[in-house]
């Protein structure tokens, strides 16, 4: 029988591995395919995912290959595998780790193609960069602001403490979605990609900072009166130095826990904003904007591979929940209100 402790350990390991895999995909993903995310293939609209194979029709083993797709009905977007046309997979050619030669027949879509005949894998790879980038950037912003505000409140005490913490309480009591929507709406509806990126980072950080701030304040206020802080003060260290060099490091563990709560909440926030059309817009892929595409009409029923970004959202949350040994999950406090 497996003990509880060892099961928790392997759950943590699985979470970390999953997180690393997502990170690797974000970095190396664009080299997995020879297509660019906005590249359209009119003959491959709603092409299904094409599975690599090692056995051909006659059951003979050969080097990895895919069958070319033949468009059977353009109207119904029906495709069949053309068993007669074998496209060998090539290593490190066409600017990708694995690809097929364009001259071999149809293009290769490992994750299928979307409504405009764009490579879903290329879009997912670039989208992962944007979505995780926004979430990590916003989490970093919220942590830095939270650490500064919380550190100041905990160290200064008195009126400053009272004022800053009341402000944090007010922000926490706001309905987060509605505030994020209103903050985003204060910007023009159409923005360039980098403007969208930074707007989202700032907006999400603005809603998320009170959660780390409250915890950091508690840690700093408790540590401030400990002997080592007294000693630093006695030998003449400045207030800033005591705060940054001695007290904030004590809140390190807490900040790590906060990160695991904020990141999934912000991933979801980006996806929701882009999904409703207030985030990244066509043709820029992010998990949210891809989901928006997938949600049109009956496509999620007819082309379920377009739900890949939903799977990515779930996997990112799962990675964090597993790694954090989450009994209290990321959808719960305190980041749960971060959308």
């Amino acid at each position, binding site marked *: 029988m497996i003990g509880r402790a060892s099961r928790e350990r392997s759950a943590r390991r699985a979470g970390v591995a999953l997180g690393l895999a997502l990170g690797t995909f974000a970095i190396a993903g664009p080299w997995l395919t020879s297509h660019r995310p906005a590249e359209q293939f009119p003959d491959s609209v709603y092409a299904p995912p094409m599975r690599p194979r090692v056995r051909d029709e006659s059951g003979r083993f050969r080097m990895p290959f895919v069958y070319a797709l033949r468009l059977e009905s353009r109207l119904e977007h029906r495709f069949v595998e053309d068993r007669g046309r074998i496209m060998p997979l090539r290593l490190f050619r066409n600017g990708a780790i694995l690809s097929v030669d364009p001259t071999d027949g149809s293009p290769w879509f490992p994750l299928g193609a979307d409504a405009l005949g764009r490579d879903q894998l290329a879009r997912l790879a670039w989208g992962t960069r944007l979505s995780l980038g926004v979430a990590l950037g916003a989490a970093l912003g919220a942590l830095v602001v939270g650490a500064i505000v919380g550190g100041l409140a905990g160290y200064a005490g008195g009126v400053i403490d009272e004022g800053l913490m009341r402000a944090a309480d007010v922000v926490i009591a706001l309905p987060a979605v509605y505030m994020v929507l209103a903050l985003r709406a204060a910007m023009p509806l159409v923005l360039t990609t980098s403007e969208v990126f930074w707007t989202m980072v700032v907006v999400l950080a603005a809603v998320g900072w009170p959660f780390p701030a409250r915890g950091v304040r508690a840690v700093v206020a408790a540590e401030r009166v400990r002997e080592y802080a007294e000693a630093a003060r006695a030998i003449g260290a400045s207030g800033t130095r005591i705060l940054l060099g001695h007290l904030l490091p004590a809140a390190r563990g807490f900040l790590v826990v906060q990160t695991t709560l904020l990141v999934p909440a912000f991933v979801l926030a980006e996806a929701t904003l882009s*999904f409703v059309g207030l985030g990244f817009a066509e043709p820029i892929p992010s998990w949210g904007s891809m989901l928006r595409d997938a949600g049109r009409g009956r496509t999620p029923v007819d082309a379920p591979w377009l739900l890949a970004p939903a799977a990515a959202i779930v996997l990112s949350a799962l990675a964090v929940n597993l790694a954090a040994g989450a009994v209290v999950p990321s959808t719960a406090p305190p980041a749960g209100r971060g959308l």
Partner: protein
Amino acid sequence: MHRGLLTYLLRRLLLAAVLVFAVASAALVLVEAAPGDAVDGFDLDPAVAAAERHRLGLDRPFLVRYRDWVSRAVRLDLGESVKYGRPVGQLIGERAKKTALLGSTALLVATLVGLPLGVFTGSRRNAATAVAGALSLILVSVPPLVTSFVLLVLAARTGWFPVGGFPASGDATSLATTMTYLALPALALALPVAATLERLQSQAIREALEEPSVRAALARGCSVGRVTWRHAFRLSLKPVLAIYGVIVGGLLSGSFAVEIVTSWPGLGALMYEGLVSRDLYLVAGCAAAGSIFLALGILLSDVALALADPRTGGAA
């Protein structure tokens, strides 16, 4: 009646009122600050647009309009929506009811499923509880945005439920019709919450079973089932109830995604429509209604927490 509780409640309500007002004002200022206004969306002739702005009072300075809005808002008149041409209060009344219905149904379902399941998985260990635990760990990671998508696909494939939306005839629809349309969005919203509650309850009951009072009850010879459900369950309620205030906030956020995906005509969807069409007073009203929901939810969970605490013994 305890005076302490009364003043506490009054102070909380006053704070909530101030907060609601602040949220509505902030929303108003933010949307005002955005480029474009409600008239732009209609693509009118410049002269007509100017006349329309004059009629709606949009050509007056913002501070004057804000003063008017405040003086009307204290009399619960939230102004008129440009998009719908109807009073904002009326619109919000209709839509907030739908969001409240969705949210409370989801919370009820999640509680009825999550808590007993949590007691079950927390109080014993076998293959079934391991599977249930793993399942809810996965489900916890699936946000309502995704569950509503998956359920939509399921509904479209099987035809078990209507695929989103709500019958147009509004209040005239029967309870049964409402239920069939409610099933999908409510389930989408409830699943992650149920999983969250299950995980928490499981952990809480496991800890409660280690408590000396519970051990003592076992030593006295009370049956395991009785001890689990009567003694330990009561002890475990505190950490679980403490989460409800947070869950209400999560429900409000999740409800927004579910409303958009499943075309459920709720408050979040209304706020979104208001934002896109730059409908100032509509946005402010929705933001206010949203913060009322949140404040109310947190207040209720605090009261429930006080009532469940054995030290106050329900007398608070």
